[in-house]
């Protein structure tokens, strides 16, 4: 249903086969917002550099780089479909690499990584947390590879590392900049943090952002960072379960609360603010619209609260389109962060505008996809901010 007329993307990149891959890579890296995979760097550095002057040229350079990165994404997808015919190009665009997982055990201490307990290809451990972490990382890798033709978080086969049993009764999971770290939970309110695939994938979503658009972890850009990690977490879980947008729970962290808690999950993307209402925890504080935006100095400016607003926009958009959320809606979100068209301090309005531009690029102006997306942002009260020199 999203195949309206022949892909507009193809017509907007009429010459993409005429541009040699090394030049494309150099163009994609010319604004400094993208680091070429290792296998490309030597080739790029051996090519004559593009104009290095500053000023107005840098605007042009940003545009050149953005275009080139979009073309590369398109190329990556195309090459994958015809990988046998294009072996030589494939190694350029996609450096060799494969799934490689390493799980360590912190044994109740707040240290990372801890003791190596299961590496890639080894048999399941007797420890359920080890196995859930290992399997979760595998699902994340498979999701990126199958859907976005991306080789791990960095596109270059980054080893996926996880630490389990971090700290004592530790009520958290986090991404430390190099790996995910999972606590066991206190057993009274929280179960082990490995018990939810959406939480595992959420942490890896932060890793994906770090290697694509590293949104600043404060205020609205921080809430976008959180939201995109939630989108990633939900999509991996839906993909593995085979749930389409209509049947998905849109919950983050289902199964994480113990039975003592009155609540279903940490967050609801489709109905923010309804995930729990408990005598000890209180009520889920997430806002569902801009009118309820939470101003606070805690939590880096409420990054885990205000993420409810863009979360809901995504869930509404995906449900309006129907089918699998990871397809049209998910790839649109992925393209926005992977092409690095977004400034790292982007607010909700700027992000909304970039998603709409991406919708026009991927599906055409006036398409059903674009209008569903407009409607979603409108419902949550985010007014996309138009910027000049958007020539799409």
């Amino acid at each position, binding site marked *: 249903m999203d195949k309206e007329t022949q892909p507009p993307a193809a017509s907007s990149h009429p010459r993409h086969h005429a541009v040699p891959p090394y030049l494309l890579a150099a163009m994609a890296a010319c604004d400094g917002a993208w680091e070429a995979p290792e296998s490309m760097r030597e080739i790029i550095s051996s090519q004559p550099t593009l104009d290095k002057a500053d000023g107005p040229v840098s605007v042009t350079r940003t545009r050149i780089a953005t275009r080139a990165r979009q073309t590369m994404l398109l190329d990556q997808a195309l090459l994958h479909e015809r990988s046998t015919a294009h072996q030589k190009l494939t190694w350029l665009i996609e450096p060799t690499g494969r799934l490689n997982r390493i799980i360590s055990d912190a044994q109740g201490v707040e240290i990372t990584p801890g003791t190596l307990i299961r590496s890639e290809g080894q048999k399941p451990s007797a420890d359920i947390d080890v196995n859930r972490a290992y399997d979760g990382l595998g699902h994340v890798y498979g999701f990126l590879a199958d859907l976005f033709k991306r080789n791990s978080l960095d596109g270059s086969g980054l080893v996926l590392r996880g630490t389990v049993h971090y700290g004592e009764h530790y009520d958290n999971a986090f991404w430390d900049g190099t790996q995910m770290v999972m606590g066991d939970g206190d057993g009274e309110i929280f179960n082990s943090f490995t018990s939810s695939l959406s939480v595992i994938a959420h942490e890896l979503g932060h890793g994906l952002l770090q290697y694509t658009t590293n949104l600043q972890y404060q205020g609205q850009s921080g809430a976008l960072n959180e939201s995109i990690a939630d989108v990633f977490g939900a999509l991996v879980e839906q993909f593995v379960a085979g749930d389409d947008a209509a049947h998905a729970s849109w919950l983050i962290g289902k199964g994480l609360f113990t039975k003592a808690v009155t609540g279903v999950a940490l967050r609801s993307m489709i109905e923010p603010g309804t995930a729990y209402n408990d005598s000890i925890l209180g009520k889920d504080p997430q806002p569902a619209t801009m009118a309820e935006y939470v101003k606070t100095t805690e939590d880096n400016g409420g990054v*885990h609260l205000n993420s409810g607003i863009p979360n809901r926009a995504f869930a509404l958009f995906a449900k309006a389109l129907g089918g699998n959320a990871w397809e049209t809606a998910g790839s649109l979100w992925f393209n926005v962060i992977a092409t690095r068209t977004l400034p790292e301090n982007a607010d909700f309005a700027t992000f909304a505008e970039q998603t709409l531009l991406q919708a026009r690029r991927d599906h055409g102006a006036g398409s059903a996809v674009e209008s569903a997306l407009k409607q979603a942002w409108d419902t949550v009260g985010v007014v996309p901010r138009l910027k000049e020199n958007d020539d799409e």
Partner: protein
Amino acid sequence: MSESLRIRVVRSGGVAGISRRGILELPAQEPSGQQDPDWFTMAHQALNQLRSIQEPATAPAVRDAFTWSLNIDGEDHVVPDQLLVGPARTLAEHVITLRGSR
């Protein structure tokens, strides 16, 4: 050290985004050294420690870490989880277990 002392702690953030907070009031009449443990001494050690914490120059890459806000005797300190160690951590973790105020 003989005056009363109030310590307020908030632990915010984390992947769950659920804050926990607590207050510890140390009455003036209770002489230092007679509590178990000696929270007065620990609070002053914590203050000295918090005043000397150096924030890294570059923004940390860690995501979903807890953020701690400590107010000791009217003095505010905000500390990322990884930098909260020693007496300040012991004190902070103790305070958020009080009053069941999650």
